[in-house]
């Protein structure tokens, strides 16, 4: 089992003919993802790599090919509209990889997606992977392995680091989800924790947070109140100066809010095992399993 994506995922790639879209579509297909369609306005009727039909609109990809999941690789200026299009077309899970989406745009996207009962992951995220079954986004397939641990993270390469260490230590994953580093995102820690708690195959969860906002604190309370499975947490940015945006638009300490210390304290108070270093995950997860 897994969360959000599995063998029934029928993926449409929005921006399939672009540089990033085409590269990662090939990677996803190679990994075994069922890429049923692509969308690029004006390229409808073409075939991508002789195997994936391209449409002008998402609604065609849904009606012609039964797509139920979409991944968005379009440029930031058009990403929000691509998400809206997917939601309106009835796509259930929308994964927005695009970086640099204006926060104003996201503010209107979030209620729109929610009203349609769809789930958005991202934007500015690496996507998600269910090892051995399906990958949607840009997470490298070779660093994961099937197993009992759920991983959720605001980061990209830091996730790879942690997941790779788990895999090398023989600890596989149910699903790894990168929820994205922007201040407004569709799916947050709590949403993923809830899904992992409900997934019978997930036996422990790794949560990789960072400075900025209060999502980790809210997630900590969720773990305390509603989770039976062990959770190991990490916060990046203990040495980050306040008031500066650390790469991710969401990684910023505002005033005294959103510091790593505050988040780690919340973790500890709510019974989450805290990894001081990425390398600590392996031991803490092994202790929890």
């Amino acid at each position, binding site marked *: 089992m897994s969360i959000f994506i599995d063998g029934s995922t029928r993926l449409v790639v929005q921006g399939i003919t672009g540089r990033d879209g085409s590269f990662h579509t090939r990677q996803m297909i190679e990994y075994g993802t069922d890429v049923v369609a692509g969308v690029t306005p004006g390229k409808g009727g073409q075939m991508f790599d002789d195997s994936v039909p391209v449409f002008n609109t998402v609604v065609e990809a849904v009606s012609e090919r039964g797509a139920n999941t979409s991944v968005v690789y379009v440029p*930031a*200026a058009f990403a929000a509209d691509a998400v809206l299009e997917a939601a309106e077309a009835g796509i259930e899970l929308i994964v927005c990889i695009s970086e*640099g*989406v*204006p*926060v*104003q745009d996201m*503010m*209107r996207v*979030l*209620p729109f997606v929610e009203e349609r009962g769809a789930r958005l992951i991202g934007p500015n995220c*690496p996507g998600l992977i269910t090892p051995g079954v399906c990958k949607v986004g*840009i*997470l*490298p397939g070779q*660093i994961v392995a099937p197993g009992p641990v759920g991983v959720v*993270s*605001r*980061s*990209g*390469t*830091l*996730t*790879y*680091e942690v997941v*790779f260490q788990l895999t090398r230590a023989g600890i596989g994953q149910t699903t790894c989800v990168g929820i994205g*580093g922007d*201040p*407004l995102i569709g799916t947050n820690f709590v949403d993923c924790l809830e899904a992992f708690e409900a997934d019978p195959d997930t036996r422990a969860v790794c949560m*990789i947070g*960072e*400075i*900025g*906002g*209060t*999502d980790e604190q809210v997630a900590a309370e969720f773990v305390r109140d509603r989770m039976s499975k062990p959770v190991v947490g*990490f916060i*990046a*940015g*203990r*040495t*980050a*100066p306040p008031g*500066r*945006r*650390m*790469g*991710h*638009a*969401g*990684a910023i300490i505002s*005033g005294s809010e959103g510091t*790593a210390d505050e988040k780690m304290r919340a973790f500890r108070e709510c019974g989450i095992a805290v990894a*001081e*270093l*990425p*390398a600590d995950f392996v031991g803490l997860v092994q202790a929890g399993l």
Partner: protein
Amino acid sequence: MNIHEYQAKEILRAHGIPVPPGEVATSPEEAEAIASKYGGPVVVKAQVHTGGRGKAGGVKLADDAADAAEKAAAILGMEIKGLTVEKVLVTPAEEIASEAYVGIVMDRASQADVFMVSSEGGVDIEEVAASQPEAITKLRVDPRYGLLPHQAMGLAWALYDDVKQVRQAASIIRKLHEAYRAAGATLAEINPLIVTPEGEVKAIDAKMNIDDNVLFRVPDVEAMRDTSAEPPAETKARDAGLSYIKLDGDVGCVVNGAGLAMATMDMVKHYGGEPANFLDIGGSSNPDKVVTALEIITADPRVKSILFNIFGGITRCDDVANGIVEATNRIEIDRPIAIRLTGTNEEEAVEILKQAGFAAMTDMDEVVKEAVSLAHGGSD
């Protein structure tokens, strides 16, 4: 992106908010000329991207034009929280009957813009929030409906009792919201919003932060970027598509990915070192970026060792390796480098580095320990 008070005021003025006149001076002579144009007492205000200017002595009342020149001379060149004052705003002094606070900020928790107003104006709103939270009225703006007229009135009633002032404030609040939206801001504050003895409501100080991601849509606002107000290395990094923040340590860090970059800095500290910077080379594989990154880092005299931590995903390790070799050809790198590369095209990268005389590690903990040790004059 931060903009200066005088720039924020230009935006507010363009949206019809009553803001007293004001002009920017970069020398005491200019300040004097502006002050004599207005006549009467003026306020001379440091234009720097930080709060607490008043406490730092960056805001001074001047009785006349000559005094304005004197005050400007005192403020120009002053350092406030590490930033040098290059410009002052000269604006007529206003008579003040009362001071209020009006602000709007993109609020992550409510996934919307949130207004905050308080009749306790002219002071740091975070202090008010801490000491008397009941003095602050908040309103979430539904992104689907925008700010509704009655909501603006409701906020204004929290500030004033007299309906004449309430209507003025409500109009200012609506225009502030329009200005905030139009500029792509994530924060816009008027503090203080004053009432004059004649009952007029005016914006006396203003602050705006702009979403970096929206700048492509608002070229007028992007043009307000003041690179003289930031370290040149950060300007250079941004122009090259790098995300760089200078710190005070001695281990220069080059990492791909923001989260991994922060974790690397944290680990440097954990193993007894001090990171010299945050630097994310991003997901692309352009060797030029690596060259620029090394130029920026080696330009910092405090840096004693350089740490590469690359987890190849989209980023190809061989590209980073080529960038390192390229950089050592173009510029002289006189400080030791510890390199860790893993992931996409790792083997090719190791080979490239080996040819050029560099060793590469695969483990993050080890490379960080090595870099810290190098900075402390250890092995190499």
